[in-house]
Structures are given as structure tokens and as C-alpha cells.
């Protein structure tokens, strides 16, 4: 009671104070955005969903509201979040409401300081990236101080210290590590006189990150009743000492990067190393981590080609050494998956997710637009896209014949830099054709062929015993009735095989290929009335599921209304089980049936 009187008193004093202060705050502006996702679940015998399998949670709601105040060089903001209860597929530890993100920042001349929570990225993120992705429930914001200095044109220096978000748990001393980082970015053409106008644009950068986490006191435990049985003889130990590991308190990582742009050419490379970091994700081995990420591309009007390569070893870098598993929390760095993010639903059924502790990957893509008004290209031109990506294990050797790979407390294994191991993780070949026939009709067609190591990607079991080989076809057809009315139809098919003799030649002969969920067809009809309405019906039918009772129609009916930045959509139907991935980070979504309401708005 007393407290609430105090609070009301505070409001009465503060309100006029802030309102009067408008004079010198004039010019300030409040903006924001919000999103509410709400789901009402129903039982569904077909999918085996009952009230008790849902823990009697018939309603889920995830929502956030961002509010941002800016006035000249001053910015402040906060994000309110509520998960009551968290929607299906989100970690139950998110349940609750609160403000997990707020900040204030000031920028003056060459200096910008942010206090509170912030998002930051060094280079491509190999050793540090804090970011958030609402649909994934991913947020590793850093709570602390962030300073940016621009001492000279073309030079950006950054420094930060902070702790990371862990669900709703406020920081307590020693419950997670402290992250410190420095980064420098140098756009040489602005710095070195005489090359401003050079066609070759060069950017160099480097960063250093360190994590401090208190280590458990070094010591040992005594065990006087310990015995071993060797060749039927029992050996009794009178006094066996088990020593605890001497864990590094400070774990450092550094990275260097370079970008060269020259006309249509672009080359990027970043190399990173991490000091020995025994943790729960690498089975507590004392090995350093290494990563290389590089891309080269060439493009000119109507033609683009690029090639990327990635090699990472033991690069899980978290601000708490015992943290592992899903959802990924306390990640300091970001290791992007190398495959392409597809846009059609069946093509994303078997998506790739990064394996930070050992992965070799390459990707290549060619995009070509056959010119407009040519014989082959047609009146509006035709675009062709070809993509191939590959991910494999890396070569790991035992450190000595009697120490198995990944043995706790050892160096774990020996890895050869940029080597490709013999376990295929992922293959994806795709080809896409897009053509606008006339003012009314547009056609897209695509073919995908994916080889998916289910054991590695979903279960972290590193073998060749469970692959899915999927062939996917898509036709996407848009018809414009008038300026504002259009109809879009999508037909998709996905076929899995249990015989992969045709891929063995490129991926190895000893792969065990299984049908998993079998064959699918999907149909989508979408009617749009610009700029406000859309209506859609969709059915994904798992007609080829090897289990007869799982040959289910995943139907969905939805409509949406958009007015400027307000958008409301309502959907009823079945959600299939699967992985939802954004940027190589995935969230498992269980099957559900029900009504989904989404409201987004910004002002």
C-alpha cells in the first residue's frame, strides 16, 4: 500500500516535470513497433494432439512492443516482451513479461556511447555478434556499455563490455561470463590520400573478444572405495584422487578481415581463432578453435556469380561454459550456415543448420537474366538461377592411438586446416526459372535436390546412418486481373527416395538413405486486393508417408488486412512439425492445430 502511494506521488511529480521539459526536448520524437502472435490450440486426433499432450495450454501468446525516443543526437528505447504462455515450440523458460531490452545513447561528433542493452557485430560475426530474431525466439543482446569512435573519415573503432541475456534471469555474480570486445574497421580509400578515386576499394578490419568466467576452484575429490575389474581380477584402490580440470578463466578470440571491391568484382575473407575453451558443447576439450569464411563474386548488369567457402573447427563460443543445447543461448559469435535460404515451403522442409564444432562448406550461385525484348528473353526478360551448396565434416585425427576422439580433458583431436571430412552433412542443388509473359502473367518454376543428414543436423549424432534424399518441384503462377486484383497459385511436390545409388558417386557409397516422412504435394491459392487484403487457402498433403495414419492434410485458411503499417492476419489450420530456420539458427516447431492471430504495427 505504502509503495503504491509512493508510486502515485512519483507520477504526480514527474508528469508535469517531464511535460514542462518539453520546451527543451522539443523536436523529440517517439516511434515504435509492436507484434502480437496469439494461438488458440485445439485437440487433433489425427496428429495425436490432446489436451494433456499440450499440458492443458490451450492458448499461447508472444508479444513485444518497442518504444523509441529520439531527439537530435540522443536516443533511448525499450522493448517490452510478454510470453503468456509461450507459443508452441518456444522454450517454457520464456514464460513471463518484462523489459529485457532498454538503452540510452548519445552521439557527439566522433563519439557515440550506448548504455544498457545493445546489438553489435564485428566483421561477419565469426567471433562476436549479438542479434535478435523474433520468429526464432532468439535474443543474445549484450547488457553493458558500447562505445563507437570515428576519429577520422573511414575509421570506425568499437569497444564493448557486458553480459548477455539468458531468458528472464537477471545477472547474478558468476552466473555467466562477462564479454569484452574491441573492433577496428578501416576503409582505406578514405584514409590514404591519393587513392580516394581508385577503382579498387579496400576495407581492412580486425577484432579481439574475450570472455571472463570464474573457474571452479582447483582441487580434487578422494574416493577410498573405488575399484576396477581387469581380467576378472578386482583391484581395490585405497585412496583414489580425482582432480578437477584447470579451466581457463579468460578465453580470447581474434579475427582479421579484408574486403576488396573492384568494379564488378568483390572479394571478402575473414579468419578467426579462439583460445582453448573447454565447454559443454565440445565435451570439455582443450583445443583452440579456428574459422575461415570467404566469398568471391563477380557481377555485371544481367549476370551475377559468386562462390563462398567456409571452414570452422571448435568455434562454439558462449559466455557460459556449461551452456549447451536448444534453444541456443549466450552465444557470443555467429557462424552462418553456408546453404541458401529457400522461399518455398517444401524446399525448406529439410533445412541446414550450422555445426559450429566442425564443418566444411562451399556454395556457388549463378544468376543470369536473358535481356528484355530479345527472342529468348521475351518482352520482359527471363531470369535463371543456379545454386549448389555442400556441407561436410572436417578431418579429425586422434591425438594418440590410445586416446579416443573428443576425450574430455585432452586436446580432443587434431584437425587439418581447410580439410574436408568424409561425412556429408548437406547437399543442395537448385535451379529456378522466372519469366514475366505479359502484363498479366508471371511464371516461376524451380527444382531442388537435397541430401540431408538427419542424424547430424537434428540429433548431433555424427554418422552416415540416416539421410533424406529429396527431390522438390515448384510452379508459381501469378495472374493480374486488374491493377489491384491478382491471384497467385503455387503447386509443389516433394519426393523422397530410399535408394540413393545416383548420389553415391558424389557423396560416398556408404550412406544409409531413408524415406523419413515420404512424399508430399502442396497447393496454395492466394487472392490479393492491393493495397489492403489477401485471402489464401493452402494444403500440404503428406500422401506418401510410410505410416498410413500419418498421411495427413495440413490445411490452412487465412486472410489478412493491411493498412499502411498496421497488419492483421488470421489463420486457421494445421502446422506441420519441422525446423524453422533463420540465418542458420533453427527452432523446432511441433505440430499443432488451431487459430493463429498476428498483429503487427509500427508508428
Amino acid at each position, binding site marked *: 500500500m505504502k509503495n503504491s502511494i509512493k*508510486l502515485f506521488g*512519483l*507520477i504526480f511529480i*514527474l508528469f508535469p516535470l*517531464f*511535460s514542462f521539459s*518539453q520546451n527543451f526536448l522539443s523536436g523529440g*520524437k*517517439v*516511434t515504435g513497433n509492436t*507484434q502480437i502472435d496469439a494461438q488458440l490450440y485445439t485437440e487433433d486426433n489425427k496428429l495425436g494432439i490432446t489436451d494433456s499432450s499440450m499440458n492443458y495450454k490451450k492458448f499461447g501468446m508472444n508479444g513485444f512492443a518497442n518504444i*523509441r*525516443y*529520439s531527439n537530435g543526437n540522443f*536516443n533511448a528505447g525499450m522493448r517490452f516482451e510478454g510470453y503468456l504462455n509461450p507459443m508452441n515450440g518456444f522454450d517454457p523458460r520464456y514464460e513471463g513479461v518484462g*523489459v529485457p531490452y532498454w538503452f540510452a545513447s548519445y*552521439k557527439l561528433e566522433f563519439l557515440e556511447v550506448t548504455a544498457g542493452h545493445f*546489438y553489435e557485430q564485428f566483421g*561477419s560475426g565469426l567471433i562476436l555478434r549479438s*542479434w535478435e530474431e*523474433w520468429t526464432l525466439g532468439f535474443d543474445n543482446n549484450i547488457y553493458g556499455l558500447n562505445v563507437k569512435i570515428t576519429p577520422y573519415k*573511414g575509421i*570506425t573503432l568499437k569497444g564493448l563490455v557486458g553480459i548477455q541475456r539468458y531468458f528472464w534471469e537477471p545477472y547474478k555474480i558468476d552466473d555467466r561470463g562477462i564479454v569484452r570486445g574491441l573492433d577496428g574497421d578501416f*576503409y582505406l580509400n578514405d584514409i590514404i590520400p591519393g587513392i580516394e578515386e581508385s577503382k579498387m576499394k579496400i576495407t581492412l578490419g580486425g577484432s579481439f573478444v574475450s570472455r571472463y568466467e570464474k573457474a571452479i576452484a582447483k582441487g580434487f575429490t578422494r574416493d577410498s572405495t573405488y575399484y576396477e575389474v581387469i581380467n576378472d581380477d578386482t583391484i581395490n584402490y585405497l585412496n583414489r584422487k580425482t582432480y578437477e580440470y584447470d579451466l581457463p578463466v579468460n578465453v580470447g578470440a581474434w579475427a582479421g578481415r579484408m574486403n576488396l*571491391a573492384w568494379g*564488378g568484382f*568483390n572479394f571478402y575473407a575473414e579468419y578467426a581463432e579462439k583460445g582453448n575453451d573447454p565447454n559443454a558443447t565440445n565435451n570439455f576439450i582443450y583445443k583452440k578453435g579456428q574459422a575461415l569464411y570467404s566469398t568471391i*563474386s563477380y*557481377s555485371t*548488369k544481367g549476370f*551475377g556469380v*559468386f562462390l*563462398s567457402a567456409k571452414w570452422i573447427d571448435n568455434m562454439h563460443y558462449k559466455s557460459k561454459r556449461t551452456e549447451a543445447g536448444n534453444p541456443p543461448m549466450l552465444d557470443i559469435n555467429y557462424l*552462418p*550456415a*553456408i546453404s*541458401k*535460404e*529457400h*522461399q518455398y515451403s517444401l524446399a525448406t522442409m529439410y533445412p541446414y543448420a550450422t555445426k559450429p564444432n566442425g564443418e566444411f562448406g562451399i556454395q556457388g*550461385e549463378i*544468376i*543470369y*537474366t536473358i535481356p528484355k525484348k530479345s527472342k529468348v528473353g521475351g518482352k520482359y*526478360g527471363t*531470369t535463371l538461377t543456379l545454386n549448389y551448396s555442400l556441407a561436410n565434416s572436417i578431418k579429425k585425427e586422434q591425438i594418440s592411438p590410445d586416446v579416443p576422439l573428443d576425450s574430455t580433458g585432452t586436446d580432443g583431436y587434431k584437425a587439418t586446416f581447410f580439410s574436408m571430412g568424409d561425412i556429408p552433412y548437406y547437399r543442395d542443388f537448385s535451379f529456378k526459372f522466372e519469366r*514475366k509473359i505479359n502484363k498479366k502473367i508471371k511464371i516461376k518454376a524451380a527444382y531442388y535436390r537435397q541430401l540431408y543428414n538427419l542424424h547430424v543436423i537434428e540429433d548431433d549424432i555424427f554418422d552416415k546412418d540416416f539421410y533424406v534424399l529429396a527431390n522438390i518441384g515448384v510452379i508459381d503462377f501469378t495472374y493480374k486481373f486488374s*491493377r*489491384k486484383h*491478382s491471384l497467385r497459385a503455387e503447386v509443389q511436390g516433394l519426393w523422397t527416395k530410399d535408394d540413393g545409388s545416383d548420389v553415391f558417386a558424389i557423396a560416398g557409397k556408404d550412406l544409409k538413405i531413408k524415406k523419413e516422412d515420404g512424399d508430399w504435394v502442396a497447393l496454395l491459392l492466394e487472392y490479393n486486393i*492491393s*493495397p489492403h*487484403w*489477401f485471402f489464401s487457402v493452402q494444403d500440404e498433403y503428406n500422401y506418401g508417408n510410410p505410416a498410413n495414419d500419418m498421411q495427413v492434410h495440413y490445411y490452412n485458411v487465412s486472410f489478412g488486412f493491411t493498412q*499502411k*503499417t*498496421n497488419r492483421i492476419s488470421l489463420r486457421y489450420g494445421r502446422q506441420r512439425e519441422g525446423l524453422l530456420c533463420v*540465418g542458420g539458427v533453427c527452432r523446432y516447431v511441433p505440430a499443432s492445430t488451431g487459430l493463429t492471430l498476428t498483429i*503487427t504495427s509500427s*508508428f
Partner: protein
Amino acid sequence: MKSIVLVVALVFIVSIGLGQESEKNYGKLPSIIVKSMDGKPFNTADFSNDGKPFIITFWATWCKPCIKEHDAINDVYGDWVDETGVKMFAVSIDNARSSKRVLPTINGKGWEFDILLDENSDFKRAMNVNVPPHTFIVNGEGLIVWQHVGYLDGDEEEYIEIIEKIIAGEEIE
């Protein structure tokens, strides 16, 4: 203690909100560093088009409606520029995974807009963008006068109508 901080923050925001003139309080563009395609840092407060209106649109290579929007605008972009002098800046929020495919994609597709990279979504956050595509129209004085979320076939017609209204000096709702 926590509740006091919250109350102070809320009162602060509400009083500022009330203090704003309810009509025509257009916002300026925030000052955030993004990168041009050749790696040069670019301050988003410096967006301009010689006193003429311009479009800023947020997109990503993995966003289907964004690609559709750009394809549709690209078909008429030449006419738009000739008739109104408008310019479009397409800000890619592709992260490190796909940011290197942005340049080959725009060139391969033959798009003629100016492209910028916002790799860690700093500009996106400052502009309160939920999901791409999200399109802003900025007038010649650098004020955000109109915005729109999502893309449905034909939406681009509305963009050019707004641009024409700005040039004619008409009110934007």
C-alpha cells in the same frame, strides 16, 4: 525499485507523447552507419535526392514478397525516374550468411536501385521495421511522410501516387 524505474520510464514516454503535436509530426531519418556495396560506411541521416522525394525500402534476398516488389518496381522504375525524379534506396537486412549474395542478386536481376547493407539490422531497428518488405517515402526535406508494410501485387502504384502528391504539394494522409 524496478517498478519505480518502469513508472518513470512510462510517464516520461507518455508525457512526451502527449507533448507532441498530434498532427503532422513527421520524423527525420535516424543517424545509423550502414555500408555501401563497395564497403564504404554511409550515414543514414545523409540520405537525399537533391530536394526531391525518395523511397527507402527494407528487403532481404530470402524474402519472397521483397523480390516481387523489386521486380515490379524495376519494370516501371525508368518511367518513374523520368517523370518524377524519384530515387529508390533498397536497404538489405541480409546478415553475414547471405549479404555476399546481395550484389550478384541485384546485378543478376538487373535492378537499377541504390543498394545498401544493414548487416546487423541496426537501421531496421531504428526505423521500427518488423519484417521486410517495409517501404518508406521521404519528402524533399528529409521527413518520413508515408510508410507501408508488406507487398501485394499492384502496391507500387500507390507509391508513385504518393510521390506525385508530394511533388504537387498535396497533403499526405
